[in-house]
């Protein structure tokens, strides 16, 4: 055990302070994707922007940063302390032979100061840099294009109303790599060619691809594909993507536009064009009109990951194709005038169909990542749908309103699907709690209408 931990080196991870709950599953998933693992020995304070990770190699640290959208940068940690004195003592203990390669006389460097929850003046910063004189910096300072960048990072806690005089944690390290935060801007939905009413925020869709451990040459499938926003992030990471949706107009890019000031969708508003916008068209497989309650895929393991955002019936309707009987009425249906009869699709059924589908069609170790809407006052962990072939990996909450939220559920296929597993959820008596998902729409709107009524009443006073 001691030998194993001695082989690991300590790295400091600087994280962005948003989507806090989603960060740990992202980093853990990415570490396992890079061949490492997230052990209980990691010194992680979940709500802090500073995590110390023990990782076997710098290469793995770089691999992690090529994917993460939750973390900003990673550093080789040279020293850490609760006070300046402790930091300096820790730096003096850091083996000189590990420092020297980066402090050579013919190299260039700069020192950067990063503070969290406090802003320092230039004079204060210079003073802190000068205090590091005892380190043998032999290279030349170059502020524009240095070979090596060293960071002093100071943590003044997370309470903006109670900022301490001195930092509670100080770190010093060598910068290694930045994460992929710039993707959030470059893939922003605002600039996207084709969007729908519920297009996923770029950051969250990258987080979903990371929770799903999407990797190059995977096949990623979205059964509620909509405008394909979730596929874009997977394609960015080199996976081939396909999707289905029951909405004929969305797949074909017809009908009313979701953008303000634009009435109808343009002739080239489709999923392929969305991928083309980002230079990812080569990863497009197909987008089909299909009903997720009736699988159209040949039996066998076909997909490496299923990443999706099922409709909750709030901003997009929940529908599935109607019964044979109903469709007979529309016998005038033809290819020119394509009408799919759809009937309402209960939320609990949507999630059951989804889990069953994932259990059957994912490769072993493949992941299902989806959003589950929650009425918060009634939430318990029991209402998360389960399947004997799928293991729950993570469950992260994003608030929607005071009484509703959605949870990003990640599950991994751990057992081969057999036909008897098909309806096994009915046997273990867990079915009843899920029925509660059906009334999510009513609860959502009951809360909203109550609030509006209350606000109106308050205004009248």
């Amino acid at each position: 055990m001691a030998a194993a931990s001695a082989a690991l080196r300590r790295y400091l991870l600087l994280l962005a302070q948003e989507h806090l709950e989603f960060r740990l599953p992202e980093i853990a998933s990415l570490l396992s994707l890079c061949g490492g693992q997230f052990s209980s020995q990691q010194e992680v304070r979940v709500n802090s922007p500073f995590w110390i990770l023990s990782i076997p190699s710098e290469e793995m640290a770089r691999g992690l940063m090529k994917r993460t959208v939750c973390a900003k940068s990673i550093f080789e940690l040279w020293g850490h302390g609760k006070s300046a004195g402790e930091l300096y003592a820790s730096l003096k203990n850091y083996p000189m032979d590990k420092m020297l390669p980066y402090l050579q006389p013919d190299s260039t460097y700069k020192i950067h100061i990063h503070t969290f929850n406090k802003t320092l003046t230039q004079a204060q910063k210079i003073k802190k840099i000068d205090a590091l004189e005892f380190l043998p910096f032999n290279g030349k300072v170059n502020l524009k294009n240095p070979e090596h960048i060293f960071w002093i990072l100071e943590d003044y806690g997370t309470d903006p109303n109670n900022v301490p005089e001195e930092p509670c944690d100080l770190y010093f390290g060598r910068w290694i790599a930045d994460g992929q935060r710039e993707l959030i801007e470059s893939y922003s939905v605002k600039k996207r060619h084709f969007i729908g009413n519920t297009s996923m925020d770029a950051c969250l869709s990258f987080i979903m691809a990371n929770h799903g451990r999407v990797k190059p040459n995977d096949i990623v499938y979205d059964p509620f594909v909509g405008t394909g926003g979730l596929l874009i992030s997977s394609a960015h990471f080199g996976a081939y993507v396909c999707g289905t949706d029951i909405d004929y107009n969305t797949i074909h890019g017809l009908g009313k536009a979701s953008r303000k000031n634009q009435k109808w969708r343009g002739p080239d508003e489709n999923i392929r064009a969305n991928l083309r916008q980002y230079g990812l068209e080569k990863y497009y497989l197909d987008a089909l009109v299909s009903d997720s309650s009736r699988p159209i895929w040949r039996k066998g393991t076909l997909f490496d990951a299923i990443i999706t955002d099922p409709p909750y019936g709030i901003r997009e309707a929940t529908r599935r194709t109607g019964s044979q009987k109903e469709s007979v009425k529309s016998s005038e249906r033809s290819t020119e005038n394509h009408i799919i009869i759809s009937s309402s699709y209960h939320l609990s059924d949507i999630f059951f169909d989804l889990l069953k589908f994932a259990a059957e069609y994912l490769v072993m170790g493949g992941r299902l990542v989806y959003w589950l809407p929650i009425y918060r006052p009634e939430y318990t962990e029991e209402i998360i749908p389960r399947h004997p072939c799928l293991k729950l990996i993570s469950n992260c909450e994003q608030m929607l309103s005071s009484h509703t939220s959605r949870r990003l559920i990640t599950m991994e296929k751990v057992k081969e699907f057999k036909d008897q597993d098909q309806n096994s959820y009915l046997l273990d008596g867990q079915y009843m709690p899920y029925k509660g998902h059906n009334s999510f729409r009513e609860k959502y709107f009951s809360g909203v209408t109550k609030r509006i009524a209350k606000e109106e009443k308050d205004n009248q006073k």
Partner: protein
Amino acid sequence: MKLLTHNLLTSHVRGLQPGAGFPFHIRASEVRVRSVPFNAAFVARLLPRLHWEALLSAAESVTLPPQPPPPDDAEEEFLLRLHHVLLEVGGGGPFWGERSSFWGWEWKCLLWGGGVDPPVLGSPPLLQVEVGEGLTFPQF
């Protein structure tokens, strides 16, 4: 729709005879060929997921009959052909069509791209061949 997708799709109609919903019948009135960058590693990963007979008959029904490969056919050459058939040949636009019979959906292809060589797909190699990352061709 690409022939890869065609190879993975089956009819969603319930109550069909076993095997009757697959593969979809292709009536190739028009076919579109769209160039896609070749990625040998991806095509090799697709191999175990393919239904080979269905692919051969699909390739046949949209193009010329398959020709036997030259005897010294290299692995790369095979994957390149497979890439072409799976990812570059297809009908334009998304899945559309009507249910013409109890056998499933009719698959229609659009626009035969002018001046493009029709795909030629050889028999799969009979021996196990190592492909990248330790993947092997399945025996068909």
